[in-house]
């Protein structure tokens, strides 16, 4: 009897120790970045150009990360939400929907570097675009579309059946029901999905190495608004993102201060991703309260 109680105590203590250990790892990672960045970090790092030697800044890379994010989501959101509506509202259980689910599972398991290869052959070489933001965004669409489609489907499915019944009982058509009764309630869930998907764009690097490019831009002239590939506004400009920059800085190690630059860039990236995760919770909650009128 006593041994059994002892085992229970021991197991409980072990599980607590495990949890503490894992949380400690996470805290020390964040602390490492903050502490190691303090001596060299200043706000100017966010707003100046990268340099070959010394600290410099990451403005063009931040710009590219944001640009890729917006472009990718512009392409992904409409298709994913429409597809989600189909899967939740129209689709039955048949071979077509099975094929969609299998495709979703498969693409979420395909390594992103392999998807990058695909993007490189199709957009960079095949269409002869070279390294472009658009090629990178279309490559990211490959993972983000199936993911966001599933998240939107879940958000729409979670709308109570009574809402649909009430709308249909009032004589509205199925599309009117979806448009005016179902979607408004599903929006908080969809927005949470969008923010989560968007957060992944910031972190992704492997798929972008061979599609959006790895070359570190020297300087961007933001007054030059054009489709010309030299303009930072053009979807055809080479768009090295912050994640890719971290990889490249660390791999090439040309800059004598590459460790500091990579550490500070990692810290910025980490905080951006954190902000996305936290805001998806907050935004989802806030929209939920608005929709439910509480």
């Amino acid at each position: 009897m006593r041994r059994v109680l002892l085992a229970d105590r021991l197991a409980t203590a072990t599980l607590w120790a495990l949890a503490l250990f894992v949380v400690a790892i996470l805290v020390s990672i964040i602390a490492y970045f903050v502490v190691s960045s303090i001596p060299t970090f200043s706000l100017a790092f966010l707003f100046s150009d990268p340099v070959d030697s010394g600290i410099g800044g990451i403005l063009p890379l931040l710009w590219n990360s944001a640009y890729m994010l917006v472009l990718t989501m512009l392409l992904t959101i409409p298709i994913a939400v429409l597809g989600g509506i189909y899967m939740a509202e129209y689709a039955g259980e048949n071979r077509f929907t099975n094929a969609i689910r299998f495709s979703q599972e498969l693409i979420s398991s395909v390594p992103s570097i392999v998807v990058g290869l695909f993007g490189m052959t199709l957009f960079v070489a095949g269409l002869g675009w070279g390294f472009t933001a658009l090629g990178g965004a279309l490559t990211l669409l490959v993972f983000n579309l199936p993911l966001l489609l599933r998240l939107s489907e879940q958000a729409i499915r979670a709308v109570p059946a009574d809402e649909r019944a009430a709308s249909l009982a009032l004589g509205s058509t199925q599309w009117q029901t979806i448009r005016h009764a179902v979607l408004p309630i599903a929006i908080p869930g969809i927005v949470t999905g969008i923010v989560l998907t968007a957060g992944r764009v910031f972190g992704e690097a492997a798929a972008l190495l061979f599609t959006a490019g790895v070359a570190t831009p020297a300087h961007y002239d933001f007054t030059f608004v054009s489709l010309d590939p030299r303009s930072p506004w053009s979807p055809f400009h080479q768009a090295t993102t912050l994640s890719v920059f971290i990889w490249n800085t660390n791999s090439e190690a040309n800059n004598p201060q590459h460790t500091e630059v990579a550490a500070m860039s990692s810290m910025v990236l980490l905080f951006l991703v954190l902000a996305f995760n936290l805001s998806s919770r907050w935004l989802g909650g806030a929209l939920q309260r608005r929709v439910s009128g509480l």
Partner: protein
Amino acid sequence: MTAPTRTLRVAKPGFRARLDPARRITQAAAALVIAIVALILAFIAWRGIQLFIDAGVAVPEILSPTWQPDPDSGPTTFGLLPFIVGTLEIFVGAALIAAPLSVGLGLFMAEVAPNWARRITQPAMEVFVGIPSVVWGFLGAVLLVPVLRTNFHFTYGYSMLAGQLVVALMILPTITSLSYDAFLTVPRDMRAASMALGTTRWQAIRHVVVPAAASGVMTAIVMGMMRAAGEALAVQMVIGNRASIAFNPMSPIQTLTSAITMDMGNTTPSQPWNMALWTMGLVLLLMSLSFVLLVRRLSARRPAE
């Protein structure tokens, strides 16, 4: 929590429903997913077999342990075995390290943690899963590798073990969250019944909760392995990238993903070397496919929730 089951279903779509443009447009959007995935499969498969068709390499050659892709340094041999073994070592090793930690943590969150602790661990897992792979790779290269070299006397520090540890941390939140979900699906009554018979909480966990959640936990571990096998940059940044078969955790190795990362930029599509990289992509694709089928089998075996 499951979504409310919908009793409402527009019966069998009639002729007019099938003409419904909204239905057609949304269906086309969903069909795009199938089209994209089919396109990728076809692409990788086609490019992946060019090594055999175009470069005339015999299929068994890829199982050779020798990787000598550069025609300038003698006769070429396109043995992919070092990379396949390296990939296996990384994902099996990472899963062996991460699984006990993550399943234990999942168990803690589901069975032991008081509410305040769960309010810390759950967001912590969300933050954990969001750390980008280049950040993991960087941490591995600047923190782990020097420690392995100076304190543990690794020749380079860049090693199989470094890769396994970094990837273990990367997949930890994946396995934790999924096994936590698996433990939550075990009905409350089963625990209550066990404890009403006078068992301790740990006995209830060991003999009731864990067996009931076993297939869900297995799925979680396989999903973690899947992520580990496909990870490219974090691995490439810490394993030293030496294309030879090694079983010593202290030696540098190379994986399929890291080889593609390293060599894709230096080769052109007409070179057999480049074609061999595509063949690696095809091998990775086949691995993903087997993981997906494995997960499907595991979840089919799971009792109805």
